């Protein structure tokens, strides 16, 4: 009767005494592996930047070792904080994000060199290099990353701020529309400008709205999942339950109309539909979402000129090679020039693509690193998204599951939209490439996103603290 079961089947209350002594029960933290990967990432950055210098004939860049050590110290700092605050967190997320940021900075530096050389050829004043401002944004991003890890012990706290997060997200999205504050750059009203600094609030809005969706769906998912009306053979939700999805749809259309931004609008609607599906496990939501998306697409194609131009350019970019299709055509030429192994950093012509360091940073990397390097980058993104979903599967509370899944979906959708756009799989939309592209808002927002995923994965992998057994004998036992 009292035979002690073998350790493998112990209920956790029984495992309490053993959890300290028996190393097998304690999940490996793999923090050393994280450090190792971080060092590789840093080394790759050094090698890449030096390679740019050698290949372009610039030699070792100015202030190179200072810049490199700043990057190294930032990464190390993040690592130490992770060791301290979230020791059981996923070991891959931080190195992956760091490597992408470093790769992005290498490419931004490479484009700086190209711009400087062109300025010399044209006898114009040298442009200010972008790589240092990117470095500052990286520092800000890591700082916020650390702040999130320090403040947020438990992601479930965020559930309390469901509606606050929703409100903040909405406000951030609407901010650029305020006259005097918003700024229209390249046709999209996405920026907020004050005091010489421009900021893209939609990047932060995506995190706030993911928190809101997660908190909202945790509460509502039962009614959204269980109550159905049969219609044409498929179980559809009741009309009154359609409210949220319709609101999300109208809202994304609003972004498309008033801010003229295809990418953000797609991102939010896709995020909401995917999270609805994950929360309810009902395929009908996907059917509905795709249907609404199709309606919205046709409508916006017919109603808005800028959407129509994008689609036409997508179908036949070479017909518009001198006008609207110039960018995508140059991007395709870049990929073709890169071929399998790439031209090597510093040896291609990525500067020929307009906005090579923001929207088209992947085209620049694709040219200079080739298909082999490009696939490596896609793999890095894929592993990152997988890690996010892994945390979602492992974490025990439904809010954490939805939040981690939502954040991973944000990343995945954004990467799909931008990679698809750059390679002409889908019409081009202006979304930033997470971690890689030049720009503060995107970098900061994505580092916060990684911090949130780390907190969730820490909670997921952390051994469960044992419950103190209630002292026996005090209660009376009734024999039946």
């Amino acid at each position, binding site marked *: 009767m009292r035979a002690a*079961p073998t350790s493998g089947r112990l209920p956790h209350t029984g495992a309490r005494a053993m959890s300290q002594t028996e190393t097998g029960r304690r999940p490996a933290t*793999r923090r050393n*592996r994280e450090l190792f990967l971080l060092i590789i990432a840093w080394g790759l950055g050094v*090698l890449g930047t030096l*390679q740019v210098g050698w290949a372009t004939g610039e030699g070792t860049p100015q202030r190179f070792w200072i810049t490199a050590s700043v990057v190294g110290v930032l990464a190390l700092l993040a690592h130490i904080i992770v060791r301290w605050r979230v020791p059981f967190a996923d070991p891959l997320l931080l190195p992956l994000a760091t490597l992408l940021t470093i790769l992005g900075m290498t490419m931004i530096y490479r484009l700086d060199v190209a711009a400087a050389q062109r300025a010399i050829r044209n006898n114009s004043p040298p442009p200010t290099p972008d790589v240092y401002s990117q470095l500052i944004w990286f520092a800000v991003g890591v700082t916020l990353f650390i702040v999130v890890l320090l403040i947020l012990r438990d992601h479930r706290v965020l559930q309390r701020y469901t509606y606050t997060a929703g409100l903040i997200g909405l406000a951030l999205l609407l901010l650029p529309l305020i006259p005097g504050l918003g700024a229209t750059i390249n046709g999209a009203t996405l920026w907020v400008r004050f005091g010489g600094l421009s900021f893209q609030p939609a990047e932060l809005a995506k995190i706030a709205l993911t928190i809101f969706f997660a908190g909202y769906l945790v509460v509502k998912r*039962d009614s959204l999942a269980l109550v159905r009306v049969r219609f044409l053979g498929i179980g559809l939700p009741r009309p009154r339950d359609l409210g949220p999805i319709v609101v999300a749809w109208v809202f994304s259309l609003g972004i498309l109309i008033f801010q003229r931004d295809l990418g953000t609008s797609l991102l939010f609607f896709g995020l909401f539909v995917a999270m609805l599906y994950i929360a309810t496990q009902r395929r009908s939501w996907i059917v509905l979402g795709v249907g609404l998306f199709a309606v919205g697409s046709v409508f916006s194609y017919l109603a808005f000129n800028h959407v129509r131009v994008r689609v036409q350019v997508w179908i036949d970019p070479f017909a518009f090679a001198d006008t609207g299709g110039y960018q995508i055509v140059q991007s395709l030429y870049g990929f073709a020039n890169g071929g399998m192994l*790439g031209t090597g950093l510093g040896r291609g012509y990525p500067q020929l693509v307009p906005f090579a360091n923001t929207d088209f940073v992947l085209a620049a990397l694709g040219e200079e690193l080739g298909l082999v390097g490009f696939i490596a980058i896609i793999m890095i993104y894929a592993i990152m998204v997988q890690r996010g979903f892994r945390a979602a599967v492992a974490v025990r509370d439904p809010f954490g599951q939805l939040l981690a899944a939502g954040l991973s979906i944000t990343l995945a959708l954004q990467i799909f939209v931008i990679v698809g756009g750059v390679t002409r799989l889908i019409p081009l939309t202006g979304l930033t490439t997470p971690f890689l592209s030049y720009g503060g808002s995107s970098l900061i927002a994505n580092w916060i996103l990684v911090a949130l995923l780390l907190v969730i994965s820490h909670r997921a992998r952390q*051994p469960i603290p044992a419950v103190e057994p*209630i002292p026996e004998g005090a209660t009376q036992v009734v024999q039946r």
Partner: protein
Amino acid sequence: MTELGLTLVRMAFLAGLWLFVIAAVIVLRRDLAQPKDVRPTNSAAPAKRTRTPRPPKQPKTAKPPKASRSTRDTKTSGPTLTVVDGPLVGTVIPLGTTQITIGRAADSTIVIDDDYVSSRHARIYPSEGAWIVEDLGSTNGSWIDRTRLTAPTVLPVGAPLRIGRTTLQMSS
């Protein structure tokens, strides 16, 4: 820098990039292999999925390695508690030397995600060679057969213990 040197550096960079990816995939593989003994093998979970949108999760360490539908083919030594009905059907919990707790709270030994179950619903603990079940002031009560528990009661072998929509059965 010579052309040869540049080509070598270029290849080294690509190799380094893939080294990183492969090192990451190795970590990933280990992680995928690890939870096999930790996750529940709940045979009835897929069938129940339509009713409960998300099969409730138990704390990791509380998982028995193999859970089967009936107690007869378990190889546990000593008494076990089997879930015979409800969302967790098929789960077998070995009764060791410490108490187990049942409830909706995430730190319970058996986490039941059921609206009729309180956060800390009941506990089962050993006393003088028998197992005692005690209701921890739950809203909907714990029942043995048709009797609602009002005081700590010896859990008879084979008697159905009902908690919410879940029925448990002890076997020695």
